[in-house]
């Protein structure tokens, strides 16, 4: 494969080979000689004061090497936005997964046994588990400074005027649940000492950020810590925060021995982060012809016990809560509220799936009230390039939402809408549509990525960056971009990733931005290499060339002279110029609105989902029989990776909509395993049709937009809109389990109706 062919070609991924033969090593696959097994004692109560921790019995267990509590942690608070999370709890426990002590023992069994020997004297405190209740001034306090972690209030445009002018007003309240990431590989890692440094090899999403958190907690210089992220068995945002890293580093630092910590599934369910549950109230003003005038929106996110990435999630919710529409005015009041529930943080889509669920159900309810076709209503209000969005920002990047909606309108699935009856009277068919949007790259926050590009002595190319391979195929995509820019075969590009010792900081792998950042940084690196060749030529011939081109494994200089890349590598080395260059890409930013972190973004991605469902009126069971995902993708780098990402996102969206029901009672998680918390199996996910709408994003590498998240955002509302189409009931809370739908159907007399018809 040569230049300009790698990008856009469906190339089988290199990491996929290792994974298919069982040779790929994940953090949980690493075992070291003389290794200690670490286990974590977690809180029994959702909220309690710790009076005393007695570890003496555990310490005297014959195979236990050490037991750690908060007394052993130099700086016992960590966290990305706010350092409020204890490495090991000291004064209080604030949710059931809170860690209290660590045991390091010679075997897994010894470690687990010793956990039971630790005595903790708790003074249980009243928990607060409902975010609305937690906002009341007299509610029990999760943290001393009150339960409101962050609030955002925006008044955009003339909201009151819009409501006064409105022909119709629609108001509803929507709820979404605490989705659990449930990656197949739980949080895992190992640690050891090497050359006086603590090495932590763990499943994560950003080695540099993890390193900073470890260094802070252990009060050590960052240079004393090396973080490596091997292949990760799924992340979806759930490994964005610290999981095992600080605990492992602490054990190795204090004992000098290698250590291993792998969370059990139950632990992962309790102590891992969740998607923020949300309560969203929307009041919409529109004219009779379907023009949306204004939205009044109130958002409450259940933060759980600690801040984690919550503030950024809240802002994403605020930014996207009006949907991809030309809304002229909006009043937004958003609250991020601490409770004694499990910690919520990043999850594919950040806060967007919650608010888009709400606004996209609202659009259907508005269409119903106006007697309009729901797709036409969306199209009428859809944003276009050059529009001023509700925050006053002009959308200068590509805006493909109208194209996506047009593709949906002419899709046979949409055209078949209205055929509701099935061969059995108790089955009803429905088709629903929903649109999605989300800003990408970190937005208003400074954001910069660096990659190194090294020309190897044999003429091959090595790209180094701290991006992590969490299954999204970033390594292959980076290789393809480098291959194209340098005019070499993609097989001649090696990629080294995610090791603070050898790769520069390409910033964090989240928010669908990794490829965008890394790809642009690679482009900058190639520019730097071009510059270096010019310098070399200047030295060799005394004259700076005007043009340097890479093609077919050669570098051409002013079309007069050419070197093979191997030759070039030799020359760069012998002249002392060096074979390695750095590419630095800084995301162009917009000034954030006052009071917000990163609103608005410069770039947005868009998508539309069509869903077909079959509803069993007798049981409330919903079968998703077809999903069409239409995505404004920029230019697609690797079609197989692209469709795979979207299909996976759709499956998670189906789980979010219908199945994934984290049952939490008084702060206790009742669904602690994969037999009670159900994620979609191969029987729950239908055939998925993915249609890319390719728009050109001038700033992106080869026009690529982030795609990791957009696929999930509009799945749940499309499914619920389809259920409404099938049955006429209007469910506004997810997950819509069959039990919940059954009761709704019964309430609306559908079950009765059916029974009467059959007798």
């Amino acid at each position, binding site marked *: 494969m040569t230049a300009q062919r790698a990008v856009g070609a469906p190339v089988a991924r290199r990491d996929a080979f290792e994974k*298919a033969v069982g040779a790929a090593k994940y953090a949980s696959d690493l075992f070291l000689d003389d290794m200690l097994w670490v286990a974590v004692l977690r809180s029994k109560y959702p909220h309690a004061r710790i009076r005393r921790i007695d570890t003496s019995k555990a310490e005297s267990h014959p195979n236990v090497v050490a037991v750690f509590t908060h007394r052993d942690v130099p700086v016992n608070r960590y966290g990305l936005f706010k350092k409020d999370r204890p490495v090991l709890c000291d004064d209080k426990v604030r949710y059931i997964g809170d860690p209290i002590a660590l045991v390091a023992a010679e075997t897994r069994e010894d470690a687990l046994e010793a956990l039971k020997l630790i005595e903790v004297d708790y003074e249980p405190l009243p928990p607060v588990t409902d975010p609305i209740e937690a906002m009341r001034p007299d509610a029990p306090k999760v943290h001393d400074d009150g339960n409101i972690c962050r609030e955002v209030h925006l008044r955009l445009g003339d909201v009151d005027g819009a409501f006064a002018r409105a022909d119709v007003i629609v108001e509803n309240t929507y709820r979404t649940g605490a989705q659990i990431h449930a990656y197949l590989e739980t949080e895992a890692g190992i640690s050891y000492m090497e050359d006086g440094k603590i090495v932590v090899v763990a499943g994560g999403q950003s080695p540099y950020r993890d390193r900073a958190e470890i260094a802070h907690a252990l009060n050590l210089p960052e240079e004393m810590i090396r973080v490596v992220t091997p292949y990760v068995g*799924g992340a979806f945002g759930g490994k964005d925060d610290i999981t095992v890293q600080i605990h492992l580093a602490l054990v190795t630092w204090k004992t000098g021995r290698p250590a291993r910590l792998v969370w059990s599934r*139950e632990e992962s369910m309790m102590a891992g982060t969740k998607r923020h549950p949300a309560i969203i109230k929307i009041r919409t003003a529109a004219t009779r012809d379907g023009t949306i005038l204004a939205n009044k929106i109130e958002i409450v996110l259940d933060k759980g016990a600690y801040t984690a990435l919550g503030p950024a999630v809240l802002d994403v919710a605020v930014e996207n809560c009006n949907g991809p529409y030309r809304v002229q005015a909006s009043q937004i009041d958003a609250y991020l509220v601490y409770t004694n529930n499990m910690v919520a943080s990043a999850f594919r889509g950040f806060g967007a799936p919650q608010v888009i669920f709400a606004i996209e159900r609202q659009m259907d309810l508005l269409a119903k009230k106006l007697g309009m076709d729901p797709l036409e209503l969306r199209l009428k209000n859809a944003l276009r390039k050059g529009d001023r969005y509700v925050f006053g920002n002009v959308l200068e990047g590509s805006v493909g939402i109208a194209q996506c909606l047009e593709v949906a309108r002419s899709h046979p699935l949409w055209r078949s809408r209205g055929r509701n009856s099935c061969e059995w009277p108790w089955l009803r068919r429905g088709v629903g549509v929903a649109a999605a949007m989300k800003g990408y790259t970190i937005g208003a926050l400074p954001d910069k990525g660096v990659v190194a590009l090294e020309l190897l002595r044999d003429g091959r190319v090595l790209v180094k960056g701290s991006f992590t391979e969490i*299954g*999204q195929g970033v390594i292959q995509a980076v290789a393809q971009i480098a291959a194209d820019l340098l005019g070499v075969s993609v097989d001649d590009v090696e990629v080294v990733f995610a090791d603070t010792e050898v790769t520069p900081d390409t910033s964090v792998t989240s928010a669908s931005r990794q490829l965008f950042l890394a790809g642009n940084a690679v482009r900058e690196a190639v520019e730097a290499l071009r510059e270096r060749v010019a310098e070399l030529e200047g030295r060799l011939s005394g004259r700076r060339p005007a043009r340097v081109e890479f093609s077919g494994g050669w570098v051409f200089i002013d079309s007069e002279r050419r070197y093979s890349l191997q030759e070039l590598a030799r020359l760069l080395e012998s002249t002392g110029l060096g074979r390695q260059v750095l590419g630095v890409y800084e995301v162009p930013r917009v000034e954030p609105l006052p009071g917000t972190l990163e609103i608005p973004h410069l770039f947005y991605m868009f998508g539309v989902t069509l869903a077909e469902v079959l509803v069993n009126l007798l049981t409330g069971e919903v079968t998703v029989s077809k999903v069409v995902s239409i995505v404004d993708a920029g230019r697609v780098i690797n079609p197989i990776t692209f469709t795979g990402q979207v299909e996976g996102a759709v499956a998670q969206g189906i789980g979010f909509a219908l199945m994934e029901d984290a049952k939490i009672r008084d702060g206790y998680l009742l669904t602690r395993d*994969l037999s009670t918390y159900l994620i979609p199996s*191969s029987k729950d*996910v239908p055939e998925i049709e993915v249609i890319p709408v390719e728009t050109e994003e001038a700033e992106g590498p080869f026009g690529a937009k982030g795609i990791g998240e957009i696929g999930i955002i509009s799945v749940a509302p499309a499914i619920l809109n389809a259920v409404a189409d099938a049955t006429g009931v209007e469910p506004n809370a997810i997950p819509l389990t069959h039990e919940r739908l059954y009761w709704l159907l019964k309430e609306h007399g559908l079950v009765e109706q059916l029974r009467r018809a059959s007798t």
Partner: protein
Amino acid sequence: MARRAAVRTVQRRARGPVPQAKVPIRVKINGVEYSHEVEPRLLLVHYIRDVVGLTGTHIGCDTSNCGACTVLMKGTWGNEWRAVKSCTLYAVQADGAEIITIEGLAKNGELHPLQKAFWEHHALQCGYCTPGMILAALGFLKLNPNPTREEIRKGISGNLCRCTGYVNIVKAIEAAAKEIREKGSWI
């Protein structure tokens, strides 16, 4: 929605507090004979991973729901190869048995048709479910060499994948089934 039954007893017992006298076992894995002394409470999956060191077989749950630990086994229940979840057995129950894990599927550097199909059809992302998925698929194809897509979906419904949405997994198994039929040998 598919409901999956809870089967928890195995690991609950495995965590029992009393260390027990070790028991000798002999197991043939990927054609190699292994003999070890193991604790009776040691799960087969931990034996394969921690003791023998074949870490391609993964662990994704404690309730036998995910299938990440699936291997092929014969000799425990008759002499037919079948796919089993290796977290549902103790190592001692595999005494005298033969096992194939993901590491034993490629022959002389040549990928097994399922491995090739998973790779080429992008049937994996993070890849953590892949070894178990491939072996479950193989056990299933042995019983049903020419399945429909619907049958494939049923056949692998005991194995979870959180990344792919299964579409490409089904395609890959379909393609591999064809190749296996053409080749006439399933392993």
